[in-house]
């Protein structure tokens, strides 16, 4: 094993946040390397559909202040308001930058960028490209990456961060294409590895979304913030969990129960289908639990939109419904249900993406600044990847350019080699899929949309058992070097087990309902006096330890949250 | 059934044998051909690429004149003509604004407007099923006496399947069914749905020959006595360019290539004056001798 190369800034993950960070770091004059376990355009940012928020004011009166308020309220008041102000203020400039780079957005009659209504937004501010906005962003960012000839270590599975001298100095990876452990050194490292939806059996997330970066940071002892807040997207297909964008509701689609009733009237009489996502998911789950669904789903009804509008604005969603649910939304409502979608929690960073560890930055879903608090608005995540990706990239570049040394110790590499041997040498035990399925199913049942004490405690026990099975030995059948995803899947599983533990532990301790953490049976209301704070999970001696930190309030005091 | 007949460029000129065989065969399979005269080349992929608006209008003109004959079907005998006309037809039928504009242009130069819709169908589709197929079976009294025939579909009669749509583009069956109805044995081989290379045989000869050799080579290996194709362009490359293959590779394949109408024509007992095999570059004699024609 050897050090493959060194860079000023090493970005781990090549989705929207990673590529935006890399581009910015390059433009700031740094030598950049990007590590990704997938080819960049395969990253899950590309699956985002509905749009990206910015207060451009193209579709009506709007302002960054209004966007800020909506986001603070949407976060159920534990979003850090200074970070949110930055996001909303800088978003318009970032969108224009993307458009100047050639992003293929949908347009209004007058040629300006079109903006559609989205959940919990006071004014339509979601810029979009039909219903393939993520795809369009991934393409334009990759084009800009290629233009700058930035080095990409493609299909390098990032496994461990290298810490030396109280600094993060690189990443140890498994080379998927050729085999072998490879270390890439970096004066700074930017984590942009996305979320961990695959912890749940039903999720909108790709197979790749296993929280590798979150786990790497956790294992280094860094604080993870707000881990209990997992967003359940209201409209996912059954049984795959495939996403149907909020943009459908933005275009006017209804949510109906089995009788055809637009039930959101009873839960969010003003915003209706475009209430905040956690509100909608809870409403749906209540309808389902109370028997007004069919086969565990309620329905997304687009019939009244008409074929022309559906084909023009929502062709991707229509194709998904037809391919994966066998339903043409022009004629029939589509059965949908809440599915694990986005993790509000993650690696704690400041407003420039810097983590507690010198030289280590994070941006995008992996990070928790926090701009989303307890619940994220649709369209704000793509915005976060761009705005904070840029900020983290610049901050990392500036630090790297003002420091010269880099030192990756041999011992780090040797330890990793040994651990790899141990993993591969297991010859007796179970295959990883069983543990993975048990984790996913139990998390969905015991840590889903609605949570209760007994179930969460039971989940801790279940996960104890799963960890024990994992540590006893999981068999990797492929002992080879070339494209060994059997190996990487086992590492991913280990990451998810540790992260899930942090999540449930934080969930039990939060004795209130706030945002996506809903405890209607034991703690149905929000408790600002005791819990208007962030949870912090740290890994100490092989287990998570919980503490709390302050929420940064600037302008908005917590109010009752209704839609 | 009365149909408008659009023979296209090759059947008018270098592949006259296709026209003579088709005209002689038509009554035997229940087709009354009304030959269209005020027409032009359909443009092939070339006018579609060079001047796409002209392509649309030329094909609209052909459709308009066909409609003016009061028929429901415009019959073609070439893969490329079929795709071009069907594509233009879908554009006109599917977009009333475009149709209105095209019609306005046509009328302004004295062409009837394309108002009554027609359907464009290749002869292959007419005789592969339904009434045409029944008549085919009755007409093929002479039979092919077990001759091994390798069907070559080529590209554009199958793809894009959204426009052509007659059969599964990956598992077509029409030629095989016709061969068998004529008493022949259909040979299967992978390259039967691949490209013969004709569109680039002049501009990129080497690349085209690399494509062309595949179906011929495979047909020879599979023991075929002859190949049949529904496209005169494929016919031209398979037949006339075999000598170039020989010059390139040293291999003399001697594989006779028949037009669809000729193959059926043989089985139906048409004469040489109608089949005009003398016009082929690769001699068809060995195949004919085998069945004592």
């Amino acid at each position, binding site marked *: 094993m050897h050090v493959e190369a060194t860079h000023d800034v090493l970005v781990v993950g090549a989705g929207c946040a990673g590529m935006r960070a890399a581009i910015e770091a390059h433009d700031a004059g740094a030598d950049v390397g990007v590590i990704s376990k997938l*080819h960049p*355009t*395969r990253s*899950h940012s590309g699956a985002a559909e509905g749009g990206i928020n910015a207060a451009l004011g193209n579709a009506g009166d709007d302002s960054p202040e209004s966007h800020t308020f909506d986001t603070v309220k949407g976060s159920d008041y534990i979003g850090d308001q200074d970070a949110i102000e930055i996001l909303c203020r800088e978003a318009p400039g970032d969108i224009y930058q993307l458009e100047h780079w*050639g992003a*293929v957005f*949908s347009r209004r*009659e007058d040629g*300006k960028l079109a903006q559609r209504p989205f959940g919990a937004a006071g004014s339509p501010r979601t810029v979009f490209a039909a219903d393939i906005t993520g795809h369009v962003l991934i393409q334009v960012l990759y*084009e800009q990456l*290629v233009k700058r000839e930035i080095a990409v270590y493609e299909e390098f599975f990032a496994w461990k961060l290298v810490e030396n001298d109280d600094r993060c100095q690189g990443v140890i990876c498994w080379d998927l294409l050729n085999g072998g452990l490879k270390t890439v050194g970096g004066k700074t490292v930017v984590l942009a590895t996305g979320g961990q939806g695959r912890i749940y059996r039903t999720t909108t997330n790709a*197979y790749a979304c296993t929280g590798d970066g979150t786990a790497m940071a956790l294992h280094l002892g860094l604080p993870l913030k707000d881990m209990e807040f997992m967003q359940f997207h209201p409209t996912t297909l059954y049984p*795959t969990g495939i996403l149907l964008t909020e943009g459908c509701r933005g275009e006017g689609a209804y949510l109906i129960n089995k009788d*055809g009733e*637009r039930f959101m*009237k*009873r839960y969010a*009489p003003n915003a209706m289908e475009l209430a905040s996502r956690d509100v909608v998911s809870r*409403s749906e789950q209540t309808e389902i639990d109370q028997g007004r669904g069919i086969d565990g789903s309620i329905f997304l009804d687009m*019939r009244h939109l008409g*074929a022309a509008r559906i084909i023009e604005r929502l062709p991707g969603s229509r194709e998904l419904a037809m391919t*994966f649910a066998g339903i*043409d939304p022009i*004629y029939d409502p589509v059965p949908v249900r809440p599915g694990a979608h986005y993790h509000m929690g993650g690696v704690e960073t400041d407003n420039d993406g810097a983590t507690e560890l010198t030289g280590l930055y994070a941006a995008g879903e992996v990070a928790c600044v926090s701009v989303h608090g307890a619940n994220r608005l649709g369209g704000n995540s793509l915005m976060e990847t761009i705005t904070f990706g840029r900020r983290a990239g610049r901050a990392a570049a500036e630090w790297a350019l003002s420091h010269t040394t880099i030192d990756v110790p041999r011992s780090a590499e040797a330890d990793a080699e040994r651990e790899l041997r141990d993993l591969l040498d297991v010859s007796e035990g179970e295959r*990883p899929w069983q543990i993975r399925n048990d984790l996913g199913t139990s998390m969905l049942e015991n840590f889903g949309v609605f949570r209760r004490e007994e179930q969460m405690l039971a989940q801790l026990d279940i996960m104890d058992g799963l960890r024990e099975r994992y540590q006893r030995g999981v*068999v*990797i*059948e*492929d002992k080879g070097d*070339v494209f060994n995803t*059997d190996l990487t899947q086992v590492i991913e599983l280990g990451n998810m087990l540790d992260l899930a533990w942090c999540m449930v532990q934080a969930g039990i301790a939060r004795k209130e309902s706030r945002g996506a953490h809903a405890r209607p049976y034991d703690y149905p209301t929000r408790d600002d006096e005791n819990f208007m704070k962030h949870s912090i999970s740290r890994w100490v001696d092989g287990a998570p330890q919980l503490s709390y930190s302050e929420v940064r309030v600037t302008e908005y005091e917590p109010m009752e949250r209704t839609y | 059934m009365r149909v408008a007949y659009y023979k296209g*460029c090759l059947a008018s*000129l*270098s592949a006259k044998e296709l026209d003579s065989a088709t005209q002689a065969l038509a009554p035997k399979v229940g087709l009354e051909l009304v030959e269209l005269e005020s*027409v*032009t*080349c359909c443009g092939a992929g070339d006018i579609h*690429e*060079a*001047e*796409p608006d002209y392509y*649309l209008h*030329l094909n609209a003109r052909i459709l308009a004149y066909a409609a003016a004959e009061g028929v429901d079907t415009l019959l073609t005998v070439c893969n490329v003509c079929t795709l071009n006309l069907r594509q233009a037809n879908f*554009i006109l039928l*599917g*977009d009333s604004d*475009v149709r209105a504009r095209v019609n306005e*242009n*046509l009328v302004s*130069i004295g062409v009837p407007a394309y108002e009554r819709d027609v359907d464009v169908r290749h002869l292959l589709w007419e005789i592969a099923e339904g009434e045409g197929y029944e008549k085919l079976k009755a007409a093929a009294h002479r039979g092919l006496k077990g001759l091994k025939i390798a069907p070559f579909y080529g*590209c554009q009669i199958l*793809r*894009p399947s959204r426009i052509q749509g007659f059969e599964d583009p990956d598992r077509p069956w029409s030629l095989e069914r016709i061969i068998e109805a004529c008493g022949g044995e259909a040979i299967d081989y992978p390259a039967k749905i691949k490209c013969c290379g004709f569109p680039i045989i*002049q*501009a*990129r000869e080497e*690349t085209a020959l690399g494509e062309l050799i595949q179906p011929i080579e495979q047909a020879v290996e599979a023991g075929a006595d002859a190949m049949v194709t529904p496209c005169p362009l494929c016919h031209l490359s398979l037949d*006339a360019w075999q000598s170039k293959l020989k010059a390139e590779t040293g291999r003399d394949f001697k594989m006779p290539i028949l037009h669809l109408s000729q193959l059926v024509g043989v089985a139906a007992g048409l004469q040489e004056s109608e089949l005009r095999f003398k*016009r082929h*570059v690769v001699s068809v004699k060995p195949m004919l001798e085998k069945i004592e024609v």
Partner: protein
Amino acid sequence: MQVGLKVWRYNARTGERELAEYEVEAPEEATLLDVLDIVKDKHDGTLAYRKSCRMMICGSCGMRMDGAAVLACKTRMYDVAQAGHVPVISAMGNLPIVKDLVVDMEPFWHKFMSVDPFLRPGYDEPPGGRENLIRQERMNVIHKESLCINCGCCVSECNAMESDPRFLGPQALAKAMRFVGDPRDGHKIERLDALNSEHGIWECTRCYFCNERCPKGVDPRDAIAKLGAESIKEGIDGDMGAKHAKWFVVSAKTTGWLRETELVPKTQGLVAAIKQTRFALDLAKKGKVPPPVPPHVAKNVRQARQLHDLLQQQGVNGYAGIVQGEHALGKLAHGHVSGETLEEIYDRPGAFPRPYIEEAEEAVTS
């Protein structure tokens, strides 16, 4: 349901190939990708393939089923299993195989990068730093090309590339069209010049396999035709392929029918034509070289001439001439027959109940 698969295993290091057969139990809604996952999890962990999103947007899982490239995540297995058919799964074509179903995408990305796949703006910053103002109709020119997810299915099946691996290929060319047609790009002529090279636009053999295989409706062949049309419109027409195409136009407006005999010298030039005299004579003996004189003229050819002049004035040429048909042809792609009113949809037999709002007395708090 029971599903059987035959998979071509391949080890690039040893060169060993093997057709492995698997039979698994899978849910009815399973896709090919789901079945491969079941094989890898429960039967053979060494099976190698790419995957990620499982919802046809990332482009990872391109592979061949019975010799035709598909996205594994888009391919439902129900009908195949019901028919008792055991498909053969193999790696995509035209790219070197790394292992089993994993191909080396490097040659693919190399061609992609060679067309400068990024905007080269022809403007200074728009006023106020805001967005460029572009109407949706104008952006729609590159709508289909912008759908490309780089999956490789088109490249896998490209007949021209199979014969000549140096051909740029459908994906790179479609991506090039995405920029040639983007109003913000300032280097259209330069791009078209480069694309008119030996292995560019005019090496496409028009087999339409790319249009057929593309899982996203990009229609690369049409993108290539758009590039050709735009090249000729801009006077970039020196390539033999362009000359060949232009002769069809000249033929149509002068005699109506293709002037076949003159096609070779017009395309390849007089010298090359003379070099092929022997070949031409062999064809001439069979009557395959119709004498150019007297010309074979179609009836009422005057109309063809007039039509050409009229359309020149109207100027719907270059890629615009092809884009004008996309609205109608898109209807074929969407498979939707328009026309029903909302009432008709709500009243269909067995239709789901109509949506309504229950005016509640008390809002249920969430």
